[in-house]
């Protein structure tokens, strides 16, 4: 890949990839490392891309994989059982913004991934399924559970009576996990 093209990609997608990485690892410093790793892999990639959108999806997929790999490395698995507390970097978002962000960041990684890709990147369920390597049905289910858990966090007492409770969702709400 020539430098001009590479530079254009970095400038255009760096922030987006960092956000994907952050959604995956919840740590701004790890997100920066992951972002660098993603673009390093891009610099070494010898395949071809159809268009810029293809490039972005490739970068997003690598970022998701790298985020997963981070917490499955032997060092991490031996030094920390759970994901870390949120190391939250953004400033000045107002109360409602921080509540939402905290609610999303409190989700398990697989739910944060779909939330970010669906709401921020505005990918379709099919595209998300392709990035994450899961079925479309699994994407819908994860989104449903993620939304439910977010609602539990933001308004635990105000759930609508018609809400359908899944066993896991109900258990999570009751235990506050």
């Amino acid at each position, binding site marked *: 890949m020539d430098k001009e093209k590479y530079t254009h990609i970095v400038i255009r997608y760096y922030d987006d990839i*960092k956000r994907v990485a952050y959604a995956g690892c919840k740590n701004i410093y790890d997100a920066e490392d992951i972002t660098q790793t993603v673009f390093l892999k891009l610099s070494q990639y010898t395949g071809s891309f159809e268009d810029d959108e293809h490039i972005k999806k490739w970068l997003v997929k690598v970022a998701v994989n790298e985020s*997963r*790999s981070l917490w499955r490395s032997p060092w991490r698995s031996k030094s920390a059982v759970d994901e870390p507390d949120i190391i939250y970097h953004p400033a000045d*978002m107002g109360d409602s913004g921080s509540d939402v962000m905290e609610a999303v960041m409190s989700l398990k990684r697989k739910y944060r991934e779909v*939330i970010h890709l669906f709401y*921020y990147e505005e990918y379709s369920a099919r595209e998300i399924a392709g990035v994450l390597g899961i079925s479309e049905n699994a994407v819908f289910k994860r989104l449903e559970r993620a939304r439910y858990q977010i609602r539990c966090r933001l308004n635990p007492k105000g759930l609508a009576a018609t809400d359908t409770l899944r066993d*896991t969702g109900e258990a999570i709400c009751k235990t506050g996990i």
Partner: protein
Amino acid sequence: MNEEQIKWNYKVSMNNIYGDQNKKRAVIALLDNASSSAAGISVKNVFRTAAAFFCCILALVGLSAWAMTGNTAFRRFFFEDSDEEFDTVYDGYQKELIVGGYKIVFDGLVYEDSVKQGILSFSVWDAEGQPVEVNGNVMQLPLDMELNEYTCYTCIQHYKAGEDEWYILLNNINGISVMPSENNIFIAFSMLGLDTPAYTERGFTDFQLLMLDGEDYRKLKSDIDELDTDDLLEVRWDPVSESNTVIDHYDRVGEALSSILNRYDPLTFDITEFPVQIVQVENLKLTIGRMNIMMEYDPKECTVNSFTMIRENGESINFTREFISEAGIHWKVEGLTDNQYAAGVGTDEQFRVCCNFGFIMGSEEKVTIVANGNTYR
């Protein structure tokens, strides 16, 4: 707060995550560094490794066909030169099931004191006695660390090689392996008993085999996929405090599995007649064809930590486990650079090897080696 508000707030929050110009410049500079650095493993080595795998597979197929002359001969061939410890380990039981014109041979591993039984590996043969290709065919039954420590261990491992995907659900009670075949999908579902107070009432000894078509298999796979695998973690139960954590956990998992699997008619087999022997699994040494494969087994984590492939000429390739992902166990080949490594059934960026507890299985179609951006089959 409705969904649109949540979406808007999340987007606004995330927009505060961005990189400064210095970091972007550093990333841009990576291109210069990457182009001047060494490429990593040589193509020659990758081709040699690919050729070695292919030889291994050919040897396996040949041995499998030879083994059809009798299972006893099969075992004798494999283990006659092994040491006593290995003979002890592998003098477990074999179970043959005839389903839909196929013969499925299961090799088991049993323990005496804790009465834990597990299916170590299986092979599938057609009516003509020819081996049916399977991919990722071994369930590693997790082992308790000590007899007085009651552990309910459950995980779902997702294996993928080429276009085939399957799930292996492991826990102390239930084990499922999925074997894709040409027309039907076999799911071997073994329910094994643990002779511990916590599970006495829940002990199962029947072995079930489900044969599904492609559509049913996809439904089952989808349902198992949504069992929320993050909840299926190792759980310890302290018998002194009589916490019900494990039991509750087991009930939830067991009920979820039962509700999924009960939709299908299983073929039930009773395996209580299998003999129980004292075994100790630490290291296994198997000889397959012209390659010796030595594996180091970690009973606590119930997986293989490393293995060495030794070619006929004595050259060895050492594999060490790097990490476990949803896609399988990822292996690292010593001597490669950081970004190039061999893996178990892994992602597009890694080697794909059907690697499991005792065998390396695969075919030309299913063994894919990806290194330095190039694909070798």
